[in-house]
């Protein structure tokens, strides 16, 4: 039985578990009357979970090496919890008319965030699989949460089918790894690979990494495991989509980074070759297909695929030795933090418009500037940030990711990356074009609830402020590079 101190180290997870259960109880006891309280209970849970983080980060594993307590994991836990808070804030108004079952929703969301936290800390093959599956099941349920809505059902089924396939592939990879090393621990795996000169071990190692990539690629929506994204984004409840695009993706990156950097340093050359191809395909396909979209949610789905491609550049160029500020790993962390506020900010606007008018097609955004001037103006800020144009935090993210690529000499990747970010401007601006240059069919003002206005304003303020004063974010990301057992060549 682990001692008290060990339990304290996982207090963010424990807090979310308690609050998740608390939400069920309140919902059961209070019924309808409690529905106004539930989101704030969830938010309180997230805030408490974040608040414990500064006191906990160490550089060790607990539970017999299954679970890492390091600054890297805590960076991702914070991202997950912040993503959870913003998702709750945009859910309140969205759920009001659409479903009676509000308690379940916040429970699932709290547990989904809990799952992302567990993914960020997993250092054993078993934990990796369990936490990914945990997140997946929460996500399937959330995606299909609007039971009366056919599209929501379709989204959940598609998500589940793709998820089941990639999960099976990943499980096969995990079993191969266990076969090679005879241990579930990532650290043992590294030793096994480094010690063995057997060609078949090497071959199996590469095959199993590829299989694992199916599972991670599904979560981060990297080509060719991205096909679920457009349909799920289109059909699932929009706040859920917002969470999937940020929280789920970040957790996928956490696992990918940890596994690649701590278990597979021996195959560095092989996996960067593999990921380079994936990154270039992901960026290019995401952006080119996004050009064709007319549905805002589908457009953001392909945009989110493309964004995963840029982040993969940082993974490929990760090199934590030396004194350069461009370590790749910190680039991914900065990028993810930037993406968190940017993409969620954009989704707040999409939800606000969908709630007020039901509009999700780009032509329906015509004349938005006359109907909701603030939302339209902030759309520009978020899209500039997604495209990586200063003065927005998205630029800082791209700056560090491309910087790492240049430092490591991946010129082609950097070039493909910047060309893609130019292409992306075209489709982001297609929404701006509709919003600013076309006449609205219906000129009534769009009413936005105060909570939404506050959330979008906070996101926009952070997108701009973290660009003008990025040092604190850079420092945090630098700290977040503290990963247990990371290979320092």
């Amino acid at each position, binding site marked *: 039985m682990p001692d008290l101190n060990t339990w304290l180290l996982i207090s963010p997870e424990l807090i979310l578990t308690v609050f998740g259960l608390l939400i069920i109880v309140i919902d059961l006891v209070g019924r309808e009357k409690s529905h106004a309280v539930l989101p704030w209970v969830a938010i309180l849970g997230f805030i408490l979970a974040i608040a414990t983080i500064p006191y906990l980060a160490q550089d060790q594993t607990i539970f017999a090496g299954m679970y890492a307590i390091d600054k890297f994991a805590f960076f991702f836990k914070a991202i997950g919890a912040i993503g959870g808070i913003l998702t709750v804030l945009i859910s309140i108004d969205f759920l009001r008319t659409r479903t009676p079952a509000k308690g379940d929703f916040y429970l699932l969301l709290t547990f989904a965030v809990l799952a992302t936290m567990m993914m960020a800390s997993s250092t054993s093959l078993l934990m990796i699989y369990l936490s990914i599956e945990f997140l997946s099941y929460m996500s399937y349920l959330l995606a299909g949460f609007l039971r009366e809505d056919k599209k929501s059902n379709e989204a959940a089924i598609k998500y589940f089918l793709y998820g089941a396939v990639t999960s099976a592939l990943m499980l096969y990879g995990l079993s191969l790894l266990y076969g090679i090393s005879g241990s579930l621990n990532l650290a043992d795996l590294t030793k096994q690979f480094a010690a063995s000169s057997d060609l078949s071990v090497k071959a199996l190692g590469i095959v199993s990494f590829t299989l694992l990539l199916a599972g991670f690629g599904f979560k981060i929506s990297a080509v060719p495991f991205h096909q679920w994204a457009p349909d799920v984004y289109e059909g699932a409840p929009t706040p859920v989509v917002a969470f999937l695009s940020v929280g789920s993706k970040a957790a996928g990156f956490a696992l990918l980074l940890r596994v690649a950097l701590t278990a597979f340093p021996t195959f560095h050359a092989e996996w960067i070759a593999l990921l380079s191809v994936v990154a270039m395909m992901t960026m290019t396909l995401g952006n080119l297909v996004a050009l064709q979209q007319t549905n805002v949610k589908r457009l953001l789905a392909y945009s989110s695929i493309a964004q995963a491609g840029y982040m993969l550049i940082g993974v490929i160029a990760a090199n934590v030795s*030396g*004194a*350069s*500020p*461009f370590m790749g790993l910190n680039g991914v962390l900065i990028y993810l933090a930037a993406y968190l506020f940017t993409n969620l900010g954009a989704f707040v606007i999409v939800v606000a418009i969908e709630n007020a008018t039901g509009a999700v097609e780009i032509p329906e955004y015509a004349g938005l500037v006359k109907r909701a001037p603030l939302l339209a103006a902030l759309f*520009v800020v978020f899209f*500039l940030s997604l495209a990586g*144009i*200063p*003065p927005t935090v998205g*630029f800082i993210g791209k*700056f560090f990711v*491309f*910087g790492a690529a*240049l*430092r490591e000499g991946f010129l082609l990747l*950097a*070039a493909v990356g*910047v*060309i893609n*970010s*130019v292409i992306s*401007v*075209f489709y982001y*601006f297609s929404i701006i*074009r509709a919003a*600013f*240059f076309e006449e609205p069919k219906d000129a009534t003002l769009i009413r936005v609830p105060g909570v939404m206005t506050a959330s979008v304003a906070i996101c926009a303020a952070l997108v701009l402020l973290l660009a003008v004063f*990025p*040092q604190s974010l*850079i*420092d945090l990301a*630098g700290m977040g590079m503290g990963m247990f057992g990371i290979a320092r060549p």
Partner: protein
Amino acid sequence: MIPWLSLITALPIIGAVALLFFPKGEKANATIKWFAIIWSLIPLAIAGFIWFGLFNPANGKMQLEEFAKWIPSINVNYHVGVDGLSMPLIFLTTLLTTLSLFYSKYVIHERVREFFLMFLLLETGMLGVFISLDFFLFYVFWELGLVPMYFLIAIWGHKEDRPQYSAIKFFLYTLAGSVFMLLAIIAMYITTSSATTPGTFDIVELAARKPFAGDWAFASFAFWSIFIAFAIKVPLFPFHTWLPDAHTAAPTAGSVILAGILLKLGTYGIVRVLIPIFPQVFQANATIIGILATISIVYGALAAMAQTDFKRLIAYSSVNHMGYVILGIAAAVAAGGATLTDRAIALDGAILQMFNHGVITGALFFIVGMLYERAHTRDLKMFGGLGAKVPVYGAMLLVATFASLGLPGLAGFISEFMIFRGAFASLTLLSTISVLGIVFGAAMLLWKVIQNVLLGTFDEGKWEHKHLFDLTMPEILTLTPLVILMVLIGVYPSVLLNTINTISTAILGVIVK
């Protein structure tokens, strides 16, 4: 110590934010307009004060420098300063902004607040580029100007000229160039860093540290990445295709700023960044760049001659005129035995030509806009005989056109003469060919503009003449400062050349040891 340069750059954006708090409604529009115009006078006054009060033209170094740490972990600093290269351009920016806002007061009636807000935002972006001495900062300001210009073209552009298409084309062309510049900027940081010292983004410091020293391939790669970003902005053949579209579609004030300032950002960057940081690579490629300049000059003039749209014609004439600037710069750094004096004359001419082109083409775009307001067409075939019908307009057009084609006594002659005088020493053949551009340019302006618009007989039947009236007082006021500058620089160029010559001699110190 007042941070004058920060102040002048921050004021417009502060004004833009202030505009958000003005009340809504038709009545407030007039207030908004006057506020923006009067507000823009402050940076103009400060620019004048800096130039003639604080700035020492005999000093070839950076002046009024301000320095503060910004992002310590990548050694990015808020480092700004001004020298003889940027000083005239800063003044020109503030002057053209005020004139543009003043003119727009009378022609912009829709979405007034947004227009003036965007314009002030644009001014901050432009001034920021001219004061930045840190490449990161430079890049941020460089991109900051893109968005307002995009909106200015797309929203207030001429509906029949596909403003949205032209705006996104402008945006994407510039962005496509600048992202590769960004990669080059980062690469320079990485190569100047070592295990013990961090790299640098400081433009002055980079020149001293010589990034990519000894690695010719990488240096060339970085040089061309940055050069193309600037060349797109200039625009140099073959990167010029966005310009005619953007100019034709843009509202008058947008065209004035586009031609007057935004194009200068490119040539300014070439002189500010590429000569000091990549002197050898630049020298090795000077002939290629000279050839592109020559093509721009000749092709620009010929293409302008083929236009029937007045605004498109002026746009192509910009390709021609900016070609001279590039030719002067290329000649100043070209290999060979040219003396420092020859080179400095070429570079002086190039820098002066930047200023002159801003004044002259700025005025020409105003003049085209004024005609369009009356005729609602820019088709050159539709005019004729206006010289007698609207004499004040005719006089303004005549002065600006003569200045543009390089008539002695007016501004354009001085700078073009100096460029050719300097360039013959090092790029003899290219200069000889480029002289053709002067001939074609003169022919184009005399035939297409003066003859078609001012001379000939006035044909009542061609267009709605009931709106034909001579220039109004606000229009005359808009043009007067520019005409005065054309004449002043034409007869007394030392007012600018003293400032410019100090800095071009200093810059060329890296070319001629």
